[in-house]
């Protein structure tokens, strides 16, 4: 067996991933408020307001949700426990939130170097703590399955993306002199492909076959992520030393992700749960992956079209990233609540199924609202003056609905937990 065993003493308590998921929703609320109350949008990837919104979405919403899921998945898939959860939380959580706030403040106020440097330092420190925790655990873990291997590669992607981000802030502050655009493109590629996509694909290797009752991906597909990372190393070098070859290398870089997407589509086609909302969310995520890649390649061919890089970023982060997270969290969060109650040795029949924590209809409503949000965000790329306010309103609505689902799961968990503890006290 390649997967690792985890003792309950070392398993992360539910509040640990829960606090990151809550922060993710908080940042989504902040994003909505920024859209409603902030300056007018200018559809240009270098506009400070667009950069602020991008980092709020990437680090605040997606980053927090992925950190929470990562801590849980490290435990479940690779047996990496968190015996001192509170200490780990203090080392990662406050610095991560403060880092995002500082970085976004710096971007929104004309690239103020003090806030950019402070934000990057805090994020680097927090990310470094997470990487240390994960790397130490994975080093000792016997797990060699596709999810664990994917997490290893995603963490490498995170390390490079964070390092490039810190170098970018140093460059913007005039502390070091590194060619800015190659560094920026390297940062974007490693954050988007090296970290976000690698982690989503790694998580999906466990979550999709498990919840959608579909066949596992073929074993040879385990070679795709390492190939993608090697190509990323190649294109990063080319960005600095052989810029003329980047256009050709870009085609190669998107190949592993595209093959993964085709395999994932085959998995969905073979699913025995065709009506599950997760299937629709994952389908939307895969569609956004392809569309974002098309926009990225078109942006290389038509550099004068300012909307293309923005569309690429929106489809990648708000489409692929957010759709995956909306779909998977609607499965993972109720399952975690159920699992933690099982741990209390609840009497048979007392616990509802996971749908008793969050119904499929509720999950489907959230997924549908996200799809609507994405459509309005796409419209906003073309008609920002008309769509900025509706997009802000929809962002707030999406965050409120997600928060409502989170509260409903927590309240159900809390009442069942009280019942379980009561039963245990009676039987003792």
């Amino acid at each position, binding site marked *: 067996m390649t*997967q690792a*065993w*985890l003792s*309950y003493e070392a398993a992360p308590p539910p509040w640990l991933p829960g606090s990151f998921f809550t922060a993710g929703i908080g940042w989504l609320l902040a994003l909505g408020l920024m859209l409603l109350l902030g300056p007018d949008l200018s559809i240009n990837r270098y506009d400070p307001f667009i950069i602020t919104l991008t980092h709020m979405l990437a680090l605040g919403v997606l980053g927090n949700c992925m950190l929470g899921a990562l801590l849980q998945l490290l435990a479940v898939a690779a047996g990496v426990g968190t015996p001192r959860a509170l200490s780990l939380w203090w080392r990662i959580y406050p610095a991560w939130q403060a880092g995002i706030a500082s970085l976004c403040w710096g971007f929104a106020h004309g690239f103020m170097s003090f806030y950019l440097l402070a934000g990057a330092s805090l994020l680097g420190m927090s990310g470094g703590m997470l990487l240390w925790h994960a790397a130490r655990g994975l080093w000792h873990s016997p797990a060699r399955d596709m999810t664990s291997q994917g997490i290893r590669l995603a963490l490498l992607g995170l390390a490079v993306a964070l390092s490039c981000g810190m170098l970018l802030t140093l460059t913007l502050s005039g502390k070091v002199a590194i060619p800015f655009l190659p560094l920026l493109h390297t940062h974007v590629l490693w954050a988007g492909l090296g970290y976000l996509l690698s982690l989503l694909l790694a998580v999906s290797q466990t979550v999709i*076959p498990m919840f959608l009752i579909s066949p596992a991906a073929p074993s040879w597909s385990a070679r795709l992520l390492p190939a993608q990372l090697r190509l990323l190393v190649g294109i990063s070098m080319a960005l600095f030393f052989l810029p003329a070859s980047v256009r050709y290398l870009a085609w190669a870089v998107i190949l592993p992700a595209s093959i993964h997407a085709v395999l994932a589509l085959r998995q969905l086609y073979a699913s025995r749960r065709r009506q599950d909302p997760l299937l629709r969310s994952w389908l939307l995520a895969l569609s956004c992956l392809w569309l974002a890649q098309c926009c990225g390649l078109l942006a290389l061919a038509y550099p004068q079209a300012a909307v293309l890089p923005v569309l690429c970023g929106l489809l990648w982060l708000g489409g692929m990233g957010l759709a995956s997270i909306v779909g998977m969290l609607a499965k993972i969060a109720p399952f975690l609540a159920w699992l933690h109650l099982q741990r209390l040795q609840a009497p*048979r029949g007392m616990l509802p199924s996971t749908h008793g924590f969050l119904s499929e209809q509720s999950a489907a409503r959230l997924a549908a609202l996200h799809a609507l949000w994405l459509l309005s965000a796409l419209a906003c790329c073309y008609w920002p003056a008309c769509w900025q306010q509706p997009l802000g309103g929809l962002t707030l609505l999406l965050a409120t609905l997600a928060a409502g689902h989170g509260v409903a799961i927590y309240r159900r968990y809390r009442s069942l937990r009280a019942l379980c503890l009561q039963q245990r006290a009676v039987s003792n």
Partner: protein
Amino acid sequence: MNTPRDLRHLPPPQPMEIILDDADTLPAGQQRAYVLPHHPTPLLPLLQQQGLEYRFELSGDGGVILILSRP
């Protein structure tokens, strides 16, 4: 040991519920087997809590056979 019961067509946490329910009634010295789609990491501490022993075999078609016994 009887033919392993195939639970691969069920969404989580139904396979876990079925195994835990079966485990409650498993007499000492007996064993039961289940075919699962993957290694059931979250289930293992729950089985150990109940004093059960387990081992794994590969089903040969991508699944994992969990063999439970009560000492």
